[in-house]
């Protein structure tokens, strides 16, 4: 294929990547879309680099199913992420940690030296790994463009590519100064790359399996006829299982500790719950992408039996062999995406490590240098990160052009893996074991790393001609025991297992022994507790960190504004001050404020550098370990007390509310009582007035004629009756309300009661010429009720109806029916009706008081209140519907009692 065409496609692909990242970064609406569990899970796929893409086939070709160990580790241990990874994520969010080196430094007392050490080791371990990706791209390019291997062109192209990726990382990886901030654009691009490489690999896999051969069965049958291939199906029983164990352990640790994995799974995590999705989708992703590794390896082996084709290149070579150039191009793009994804994320992670754990602590401890940089440390920091990115890529390029050409893909990858595994004791021990200390971590790391260097790197350098080869075959100075590939006479392992065994064993041993033997500093102890018990402290981390000394707010302010700028600093401080009720006008800063400032800085320059910076502007007092324990205990108690206090407060508030409600109720009752008294008094005064006036007239006018005298006397009697009735009503109501009134129940035929009631108002109706229309459905079951009270209710309703209808035009309808378990009685009139405002009020005994001067035409105002009480005593209800101008309809519902219903 024309190499110019391949270059064009590669550039276009990179352009697309820029586009995706730019789009994700810019669009606010998609940001929500970007931080979702699918994007998160896919971005973890950065684990499958070019090594996986090309190298797995090569590894399957030489070692068979063993290549799977790289994926089995993460798959088998994915459920544990919920315990380990979630804890790491929580710690990093709370402590604002953005890199592995800072994680280790922070855990072991914010030690700048330890952070620098980790960063340095990561650099040594990972740069070759990055160059491996560059190598994969240039090799695949050469294969696709069918160039001779030594071509200068590919070397130059690789350099340009490295620069292109550097620009991408600088654009999308250093936009924000806070290293702990998420890079939405970068993550989205990486997730897209994960999809691209998976789809591309599936394409070529399906083509080889079903296009070139006739399915899986065909390939495996053909392969099993070749003795050289048959042994690849099984695990070598001689030490093979041991190898599996160490390789699985290696991948298990690397999925957590690779800087790029730490970047995507921890730093870029926006929600701990996204882990739930990743725990099953990520293993699934790895399964799918590895589905066709063996078929391609066997297919390639069968196709190229007598030719010298590197198995690493089978994915490209097979389509090309059959002249499927478009497929080869897709495959190339898949590999390209695997490589670029890895380079991008790894470079971001490592550059942050370099700037925060190596450069910043160095700058901060060099006063002359510090002065030269001036007040704008923020700009300096971003510049430093950008230069780190370029330096990293240049280093990777140099490594590639000078060294990497001599090794297959897998070997460099595994060497890097083994280096990264050295972080395991310090990191994992650090989050589960409080006693783990700085000496243990430092010495363990140095020794583990030295062993790694000795057992893996030295032999490679010897093979490359930097040392005499005899070093590998007979050991240094002829000492067999020190032979790098069989240290202390240990044989039977492959090179990686051997190196991992020794380095990790010595590392763990040093870590544990020194941690037990030597004491922690107070800062270390504090951090150890906060890391191990993170779920206990994460809510109140600011008040849990130990600090004692003298600090001034303006100092902290100027410190922060060096990175955040004046405006943002003021904003951040004011927010904190508001939340914690701190007055910023005080000169002295409280320990919480100092911790907050340090935490903010840690997000930008790492915890160790932040510690150094804060220490430079404050006067700190030493705190002993015992005090730390004491203070932490206190803060724990404080949390508890606070919680109790909040509880008490809530209870108090509840009680206050209840009290207020009770009080309001009392006032209301009081007012109602007052109103009631006024009403009753008023109602009593009216008949008394008539009685008194008429009596006085009778006394003063003995000459009155009989007729008039008689009229006056009967009015006096009527008004006296009214008075009596009123008094008994008041007493009745009082009895009902105080619950002293009991019903005298008996079996009552409601229809009979209604007839009797109609009978007794008959005279009244006749006087007013009102038509009474009574309609009773018969027969109805008897009701268990107080007959006299029901009669009272009926007479009240009927006489009210009569009272309010117009003389001569009145029409009253009485209707009784049964509806389910209820008697329903309606009394409807065609009087003036009741305004909707009053429809509830009329059942209230204080009706008249609510209308101080506008008075209900007639009646005591107590009748309906009593009626309502009686009905309620029968477990029934009364309501009214009315349209002013077209009458009122009162509806009474009384439930049939169970025993009565049973009789029927």
């Amino acid at each position: 294929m024309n190499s110019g065409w391949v270059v064009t496609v590669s550039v276009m692909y990179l352009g697309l990547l820029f586009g995706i990242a730019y789009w994700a970064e810019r669009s606010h609406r998609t940001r929500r879309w970007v931080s979702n569990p699918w994007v998160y899970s896919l971005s973890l796929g950065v684990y499958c680099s070019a090594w996986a893409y090309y190298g797995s086939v090569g590894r399957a070709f030489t070692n068979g199913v063993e290549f799977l160990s790289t994926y089995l580790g993460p798959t088998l241990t994915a459920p544990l992420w919920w315990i380990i990874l979630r804890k790491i994520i929580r710690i990093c969010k709370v402590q604002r940690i953005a890199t592995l080196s800072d994680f280790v430094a922070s855990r072991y007392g914010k030690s700048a030296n330890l952070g620098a050490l980790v960063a340095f080791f990561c650099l040594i371990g990972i740069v070759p790994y990055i160059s491996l990706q560059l190598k994969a791209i240039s090799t695949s390019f050469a294969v696709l463009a069918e160039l001779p291997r030594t071509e200068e062109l590919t070397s130059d192209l690789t350099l340009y590519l490295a620069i292109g990726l550097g620009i991408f990382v600088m654009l999308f990886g250093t936009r924000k100064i806070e290293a702990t901030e998420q890079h939405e654009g970068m993550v989205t691009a990486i997730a897209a790359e994960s999809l691209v490489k998976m789809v591309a690999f599936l394409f070529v896999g399906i083509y080889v399996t079903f296009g070139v051969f006739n399915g899986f069965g065909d390939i495996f049958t053909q392969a099993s006829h070749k003795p050289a291939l048959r042994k690849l199906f099984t695990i070598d029983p001689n030490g093979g299982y041991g190898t599996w164990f160490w390789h699985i352990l290696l991948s298990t640790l690397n999925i957590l500790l690779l800087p790029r994995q730490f970047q995507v799974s921890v730093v870029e995590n926006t929600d701990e719950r996204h882990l739930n999705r990743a725990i099953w989708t990520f293993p699934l992703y790895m399964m799918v992408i590895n589905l066709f590794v063996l078929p391609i390896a066997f297919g390639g082996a069968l196709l190229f039996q007598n030719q010298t084709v590197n198995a690493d290149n089978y994915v490209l070579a097979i389509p090309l062999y059959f002249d499927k150039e478009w497929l080869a191009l897709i495959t190339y793009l898949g590999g390209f995406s695997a490589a670029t994804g890895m380079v991008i994320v790894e470079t971001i992670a490592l550059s942050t490590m370099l700037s925060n754990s190596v450069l910043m602590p160095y700058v901060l401890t060099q006063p002359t240098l510090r002065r030269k940089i001036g007040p704008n440390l923020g700009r300096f920091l971003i510049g430093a990160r950008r230069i780190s990115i370029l330096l990293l890529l240049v280093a990777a390029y140099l490594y590639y052009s000078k060294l990497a050409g001599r090794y297959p893909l897998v070997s460099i990858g595994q060497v890097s893996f083994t280096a990264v595994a050295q972080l395991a004791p310090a990191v994992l021990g650090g989050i589960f074991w409080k006693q783990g200390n700085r000496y243990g971590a430092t010495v363990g790391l140095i020794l583990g790393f030295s062993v790694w260097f000795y057992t893996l790197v030295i032999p490679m350098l010897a093979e490359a001609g930097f040392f005499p080869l005899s070093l590998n075959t007979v050991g240094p100075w002829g000492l067999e025991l020190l032979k790098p590939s069989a240290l202390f006479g240990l044989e039977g392992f492959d090179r990686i297992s051997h190196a991992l065994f020794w380095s990790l064993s010595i590392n763990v041993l040093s870590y544990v022994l020194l941690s037990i033997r030597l004491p922690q500093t107070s800062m270390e102890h504090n951090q150890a507790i906060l890391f191990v018990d993170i779920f206990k402290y994460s809510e109140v981390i600011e008040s849990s960190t130990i600090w004692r000394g003298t600090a001034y707010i303006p100092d902290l302010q100027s410190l922060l504004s060096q990175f955040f700028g004046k405006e943002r600093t003021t904003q951040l401080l004011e927010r904190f001050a508001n939340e914690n009720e701190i007055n910023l006008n005080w000169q002295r800063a409280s320990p919480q404020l100092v911790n907050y400032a340090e935490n903010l800085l840690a997000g930008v320059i790492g915890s160790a550098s932040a510690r150094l910076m804060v220490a430079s502007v404050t006067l700190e007092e030493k705190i002993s370990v015992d005090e730390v324990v004491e203070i932490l205990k206190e803060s724990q108690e404080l949390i508890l007390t606070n919680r109790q206090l909040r509880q008490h407060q809530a209870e108090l508030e509840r009680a206050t509310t209840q009290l207020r409600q009770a009080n309001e109720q009392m006032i209301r009752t009081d007012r109602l009582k007052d109103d009631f008294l006024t009403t009753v008094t008023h109602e009593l005064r009216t008949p008394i007035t008539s009685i008194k006036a008429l009596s006085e007239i009778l006394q003063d006018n003995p000459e009155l004629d009989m007729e008039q005298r008689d009229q006056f006397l009967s009015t006096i009697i009527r008004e006296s009756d009214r008075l009596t009735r009123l008094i008994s009503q008041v007493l009745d109501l009082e009895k009902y309300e105080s619950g002293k009134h009991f019903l005298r129940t008996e079996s009552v035929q409601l229809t009979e009661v209604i007839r009797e009631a109609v009978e007794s108002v008959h005279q009244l109706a006749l006087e007013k010429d009102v038509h009474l229309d009574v309609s009773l459905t018969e027969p109805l079951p008897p009701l268990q009720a107080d007959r006299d009270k029901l009669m009272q209710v009926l007479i009240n309703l009927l006489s009210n109806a009569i009272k309010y209808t117009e003389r001569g035009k009145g029409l009253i309808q009485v209707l009784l029916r049964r509806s389910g378990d209820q008697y329903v009685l309606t009394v409807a009139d065609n009087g003036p009706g009741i305004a909707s405002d009053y429809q509830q009020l009329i059942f209230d005994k204080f009706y008249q008081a609510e209308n101080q001067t506008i008075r209900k035409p007639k009646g005591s105002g107590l009748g309906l209140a009593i009626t309502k009480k009686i009905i309620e005593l029968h477990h029934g209800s009364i309501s009214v519907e009315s349209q002013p101008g077209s009458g009122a309809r009162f509806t009474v519902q009384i439930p049939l009692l169970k025993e009565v219903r049973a009789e029927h």
Partner: protein
Amino acid sequence: MNADLRRDELTLSGMMKILIVDDEPGIVMSLEFLMKKEGYQVYIARDGAEALDIIHQEQPQLVLLDIMMPSVDGYEVCRQVKGSDLLRQTKIVFLSAKSKESDIEKGLSYGADLYLTKPFSTRNLMAKVQELTA
């Protein structure tokens, strides 16, 4: 001179007019008897609206006014009468069961000439009415 003339005119036209405003038949009955016995011409209204109609039509010299009534209440009637240039001369006597200090003050603040609480003494009432119409 003017007052005498007016009195003469009234006597000439027959009798002095008095309006009773109340919705209680027993009370109306007693007041009607008392006023008629004194020789007044008596008008009766059952609520405020009716009272205002009669006042405008007949321009009685004195109104015996209840407060608690349907529709327009006694305060409103008093306010309208005393607020009108034409009717201001009309004497107003409140007769109400509302007996609180505040009620009485309110009634007088509307310009009423007298406030009597129910139950009232007929003898006292008659003395006051004669006083007011003299």
